[in-house]
């Protein structure tokens, strides 16, 4: 046992005084431009789908409905049963590989445009701007002492936020309880306890995350935010400040000759920092907080236009391009690289398998359960019988009729009134007696097959194996 060397002992400087940093409120400046336009388009598109689809009708039922109690999941013409869980798995794998692929090509596109956290924060900021005014007005309002106007504006803002949040919660629950029934229950003040809980919980989460938490969710809570940087490589498009062109930064008059003053293109107006929803300075380089929203590109381009400078001081570029390995115009050539090819290849395969599986999805499932009480029994005429339960799952939305045959042994006959009818999206059990002639059969256990065919659609079929016992 060695005595600790005194010079290696921890020092006071190592002691962390506090692990908690109080959040500095970010006042995001509104920006317009090419990327902002895309974000608006995606916010509208995703929210039309989210708020709209529960109201669509298909086959006289809600087009998209996840009926947890009956364990049937309706998506337009498709009905999924718990047995179809593999499709959800495939969908999640497709989502994951899409995320990998898009991130490898152009960084955190998902975060910047489609993530609900971004989308709802964006909507909440529109409301905030509508009520409280632009960035400067909002900062002034927050600094002002509490008065009738301040309280009024804050109440209005939170009122609209809460109303939208509750509508979001209502829509969310509407995917699980038919939304028209749910609307009736809300109107009649007769919501069930769980429906009430989920509406308020989802509403509260929306209000809290999009109104209060905002970039903290991305910075401290979101695991995807962290692992997406693993998909980055030197050829990934990232939002970049062109330091070579911008530095040394400094303010100048619009008419002044920057070169003569020894200044770069950056006028140090701080617009790129003010528009950033996570409050970072992109000029310090790529940071983990950057959600790839490109607001700084739009903001900087506006300034460059005003100054009469070329656009693109902040732009999408790659690490290699910034370091001069190739020029920006050659970036598209570097998109095709092994990482991207592997992601795309896997994605294509899984997508094909997914849609192939959907195309071939059998609306008939059959289970054969052999009776355990008795191996076999005697029947009139010296025959012997084995008993089975045939369980039919008809996932089709119309009643179907099925024929059943049995094969595998000589002289087997099936004692079942055919065809059997199974109502739409229903499970039915039919006890089935199979009779055999022991004089034709050897003693022991023999494999047999049940063949089930849809009477009207011969391509819908299921074959299930079981055993037949002979004394």
């Amino acid at each position, binding site marked *: 046992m060695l005595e600790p*060397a005194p010079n290696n002992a921890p020092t*006071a400087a190592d002691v962390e005084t506090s692990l908690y940093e109080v959040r500095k409120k970010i006042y995001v400046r509104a920006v317009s431009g090419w990327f902002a336009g895309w974000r608006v388009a995606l916010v509208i598109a995703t929210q039309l789908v989210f708020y709209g689809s529960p109201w669509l009708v298909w086959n006289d039922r809600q087009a998209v409905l996840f009926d947890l109690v009956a364990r049937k999941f309706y998506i337009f013409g498709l009905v999924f049963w718990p047995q179809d869980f593999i499709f959800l798995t495939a969908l999640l794998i497709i989502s994951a590989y899409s995320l990998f692929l898009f991130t490898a090509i152009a960084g955190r596109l998902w975060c910047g445009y489609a993530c609900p956290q971004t989308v709802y924060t964006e909507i909440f900021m529109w409301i905030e701007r509508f009520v409280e005014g632009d960035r400067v007005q909002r900062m002034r309002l927050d600094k002002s002492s509490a008065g009738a106007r301040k309280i009024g504006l804050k109440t209005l803002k939170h009122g609209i936020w809460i109303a939208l949040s509750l509508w979001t919660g209502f829509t969310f629950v509407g995917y699980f309880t038919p939304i028209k029934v749910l609307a009736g229950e809300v109107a009649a003040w007769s919501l069930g306890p769980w429906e009430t809980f989920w509406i308020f919980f989802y509403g509260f989460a929306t209000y809290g995350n999009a109104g209060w938490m905002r970039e903290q969710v991305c910075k401290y809570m979101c695991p995807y935010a962290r692992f997406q940087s693993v998909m980055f490589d030197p050829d990934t498009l990232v939002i970049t400040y062109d330091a070579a062109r911008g530095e040394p930064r400094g303010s100048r008059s619009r008419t002044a000759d920057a070169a003569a003053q020894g200044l770069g293109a950056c006028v140090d107006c701080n617009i790129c920092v003010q528009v950033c929803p996570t409050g970072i300075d992109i000029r310090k380089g790529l940071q983990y907080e950057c959600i790839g929203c490109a607001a700084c590109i739009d903001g900087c381009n506006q300034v460059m236009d005003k100054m009469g400078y070329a656009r693109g001081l902040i732009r999408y570029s790659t690490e290699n391009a910034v370091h001069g390995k190739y020029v920006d115009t050659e970036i598209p050539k570097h998109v095709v690289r092994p990482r991207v090819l592997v992601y795309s290849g896997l994605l294509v395969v899984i997508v094909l398998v997914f849609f192939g599986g959907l195309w071939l999805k059998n609306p008939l499932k059959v289970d054969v359960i052999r009776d355990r*009480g008795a191996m076999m029994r005697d029947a009139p005429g010296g025959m012997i019988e084995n008993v089975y339960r045939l369980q039919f799952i008809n996932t089709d939305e119309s009643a179907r009729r099925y024929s059943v045959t049995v094969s595998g042994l000589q002289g087997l006959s099936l004692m079942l009134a055919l065809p059997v009818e199974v109502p739409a999206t229903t499970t039915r059990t039919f*006890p089935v007696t199979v009779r055999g002639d022991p004089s034709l059969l050897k003693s022991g256990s023999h494999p047999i097959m049940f063949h089930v065919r849809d009477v009207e659609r011969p391509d819908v079929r299921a074959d299930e194996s079981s055993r037949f016992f002979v004394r």
Partner: protein
Amino acid sequence: MSDFVHDGWSLYIAIITLLSLIACAVLLKALSTRKLSKGEQAGTTGHAWDEDLQEWNNPLPGWWMWLFYITIVFAVVYLVLYPGLGSFKGYLGWSSVGQYQDEQKEAAATFGPVIDRFLKQDVTVVAGDPQAREIGQRLFLNYCAQCHGSDAGGSRGFPNLRDGDWLYGGSPDSIRTTISGGRNGLMPPMGAAVGGGEDVRDVVHYVLKIAGRTHDGLRAQRGQAKFARVCASCHGADGKGNPQIGAANLTDDIWLHGGTEAAIAETITKGRISQMPAHKDFLDEGKIHLLTAYVLGISGQAGKK
């Protein structure tokens, strides 16, 4: 009901539980060091690993300590409300049996109206109702199919319910009585009463004769007298059985325990005991009503074939 033989054990366990709680609190208090003042440096634990690797002996964060205290408070509250402290039942009076009964009540309230509708109807009407048949089939598969088979076709020792042959009668009331009260079928060993092995064979051939099967005429003739003397008291002079006591009809070529010569001989020599368990203790009136209707329905179908 207490599992303890003597009340003292309950007290013993309660005291140990409470002492453990107090010990936890004391241990926690003893281990919580004072908060460092600003700029003050904590000492190390005094150990060194790998030559110079040391560990700070900082006080546990306050919120962490409080989580432990909260678990102790939780334990106290739990022990007051729920059973756990010896044989003390807790102020909420919760028990697993009570919870089970509550859930049963809830299920009865949910499914009661559906079943009550059928309970008001006559069994023969219920037997023709498709919904009742569906419920009946599920009940049958749950409670009856283990012995009688999923197709109600029975097997050796367990009657076929579809063949229209009834040991205790096939009226709705007899079927209901059979299901709710159960039946004890007893064929006493009659080998000695009949005589020896050859005498038993004679009776077997007489039984085969009245069942309409191929038999030895001479033996059957000899067996007839023995049958009248020994068997007829239960199975009747004509061998058609007696549903009052569950004596089987021997003329219909339906054999609960096998119809071969050897099987019939064994039945006569050693007797048979079969039991239909009573279901009234765990099936309510409504379910028995639906099962009666279901059994009646499938036997009727078999009769038509």
